[in-house]
């Protein structure tokens, strides 16, 4: 037919896209609508009640977090997520990644780059998975510069959605599922599951001994209990808490897992339906690549399926979030108390044997809190499940505090362990003894000296493509 012919003639690709091309602008030549909308993830000006693209210092908003994470990187710096185009900058700017002075310096491994850039699949293809995961974060600074983009989700040949994350493919395989069999609609969520999933670094994989290999802990399932079972089985510990000495787990954005348990996930609504809804321009429907909070785009996301007023829909979201976050915040307070009470026990000379159950209780309670808290959007994605998880978290934490109360009295302490003075981020960081000035100075130096060199080197390399 005429139009189809037209298509073949008029729309020859502008450029040929190389395999695993990391530069989004290059893809943009062929796909201007998608590229232009993707570019808008640069914007950082929308704030909803709890989320949005604006930069929000979570430790400022909620200094309790500092105590919960004492002894771990997150106590130094933790911000609410921003658009995909900020991923590289935010990783580099975070105090968690420290101030490396050379390729073998700094607190974080290479693996940290994994969910931040289309340079990652390129690099894995070039040097292999083990090599990629090896070494310090700083060792790949010159290689990884483009922020999350086309090559993370698309194959350049067919433009089909594609999975470029080894961890996701491997997690499916270990569960006996073949990700290549996923339907197109499932792929509209699975491309997100590449990164918006709970993960840990496993250093004991037989073929990758000593390498912090990225693993999704889904072997037993994806509920909070399933993943806890997995971690308990493999004996995984993310860090030892500075105050309570509990062997902690950190939950990291189990977004996909939680979403699947909610009613939208159950009904087959995909992440893209809400975060990348179709948009009509010039009578053509295309996928809006401005991934963001749907509350900044209710008309194209929610209202295509729901006839209610925008205000009403936003209220529904807030109602769910308010109800979940009320108890989540309370659980935080209880965990702060549990940590300081455990600290007091040690101070009073408690034995390992006396503390054993208590420390395990703290681990399980905080894991539940974090599963709910780190799953951004989860209070809307699956509120009933998160209500359950937090309720159970409160139960476990309080049961632990009963044991603490008894132990404290056994140790001769009769009063209440006071709630720490942590009204501000600064106060909280001081309370746990973080040398903030030093950390900030190191970071500043890194950003002024080393990082510009990485960028320069990368520019040169890319010029040869």
């Amino acid at each position: 037919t005429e139009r189809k012919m037209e298509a073949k003639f008029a729309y020859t690709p502008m450029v040929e896209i190389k395999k695993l091309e990391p530069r989004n602008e290059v893809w943009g030549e062929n796909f201007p609508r998608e590229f232009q909308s993707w570019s808008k993830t640069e914007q950082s000006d929308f704030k909803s009640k709890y989320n949005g693209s604006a930069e929000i210092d979570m430790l400022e908003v909620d200094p309790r977090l500092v105590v919960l994470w004492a002894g771990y990187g997150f106590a130094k710096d933790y911000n609410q997520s921003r658009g995909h185009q900020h991923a590289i900058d935010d990783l580099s700017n975070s105090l968690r990644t420290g101030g490396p002075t050379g390729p073998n310096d700094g607190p974080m491994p290479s693996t940290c780059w994994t969910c931040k850039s289309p340079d990652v699949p390129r690099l894995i293809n070039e040097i292999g998975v083990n090599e990629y995961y090896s070494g310090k974060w700083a060792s790949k600074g010159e290689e990884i510069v483009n922020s999350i983009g086309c090559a993370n989700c698309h194959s350049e040949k067919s433009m089909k959605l594609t999975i470029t994350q080894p961890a996701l493919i491997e997690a499916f395989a270990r569960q006996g599922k073949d990700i290549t069999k996923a339907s197109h609609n499932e792929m509209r969520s699975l491309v997100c599951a590449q990164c918006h999933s709970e993960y840990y670094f496993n250093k004991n994989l037989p073929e990758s001994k000593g390498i912090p290999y990225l693993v999704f802990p889904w072997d037993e399932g994806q509920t909070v209990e399933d993943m806890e079972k997995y971690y308990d089985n493999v004996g995984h510990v993310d860090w030892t808490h500075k105050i309570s000495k509990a062997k902690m787990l950190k939950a990291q954005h189990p977004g996909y897992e939680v979403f699947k348990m909610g009613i939208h996930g159950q009904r087959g609504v995909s992440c893209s339906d809400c975060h990348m809804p179709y948009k009509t321009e010039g009578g053509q429907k295309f996928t809006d690549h401005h991934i963001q909070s749907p509350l900044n785009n209710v008309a194209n996301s929610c209202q295509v399926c729901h006839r209610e007023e925008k205000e009403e829909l936003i209220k529904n979201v807030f109602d769910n979030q308010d109800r979940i976050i009320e108890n989540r915040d309370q659980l935080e307070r209880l965990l702060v108390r549990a940590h300081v009470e455990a600290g007091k026990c040690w101070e009073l000379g408690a034995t390992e044997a006396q503390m054993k159950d208590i420390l395990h209780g703290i681990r399980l309670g905080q894991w539940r809190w974090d599963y709910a808290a780190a799953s951004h959007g989860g209070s809307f994605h699956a509120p009933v499940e998160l209500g359950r998880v937090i309720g159970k978290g409160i139960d476990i934490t309080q049961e632990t505090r009963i044991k603490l109360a008894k132990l404290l009295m056994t140790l001769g302490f009769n009063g209440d362990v006071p709630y720490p003075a942590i009204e501000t981020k600064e106060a909280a960081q001081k309370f746990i003894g973080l040398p903030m000035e030093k950390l900030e100075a190191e970071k500043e130096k890194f950003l002024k000296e080393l990082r510009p060199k990485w960028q320069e080197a990368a520019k040169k390399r890319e010029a040869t493509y």
Partner: protein
Amino acid sequence: MSIFKKLIPPPEWRLPVLILMGAMTGLTLYALIESKAVSYLSDDPKTCANCHVMTPQYATWQNSSHREWASCNDCHVPQDNVFKKYLFKAKDGMYHASVFLTRGEPEVIRMKEAGVEVVQSNCIRCHEDQVTDARLSGLVEDHKENRTERKCWTCHQEVPHGSIHSLSSVKYYGKIDEEHQETVPAWLSKYLKESDNQKNKKDE
């Protein structure tokens, strides 16, 4: 020949069988007339609503953005081939008529699988140029498939019947507007006829 022979019942059964066959033919005719099944062959939406079971769909369609563009048959009957169109209609028509007459209709009617496919392909028939990008079809593998495999009304839930589906979902069940509304009452239109006719003549 031998097959026909086998079908002829033994002599002592012939009378009752004849009566039975007559009754069945009569009943079928009755069914066809009573349900105005012949009207099924027309494209006028009102003929669907003849059968009061279809009133909710008629009423919702009438209030939808599609009223001016698509009739029932534009969506519910295959439009790619004239033969298929009438075959489908006849099959459907007989089925609906028999359900109606046996009062088997459920409170909430739902499309059967065959009907779902037909409607989906009709959405695409009209909207293909909007939902698929001719340009991208060349560059993106499975572009058309990706865009059209999900049932359109999982997102466009209100097109065209709204999201409440039930025989009881409309107030004047069993009546479509034509039957209970007289925009111009008979006595008045009789009076008006002449002047109308005159006007028409003048225009000519």
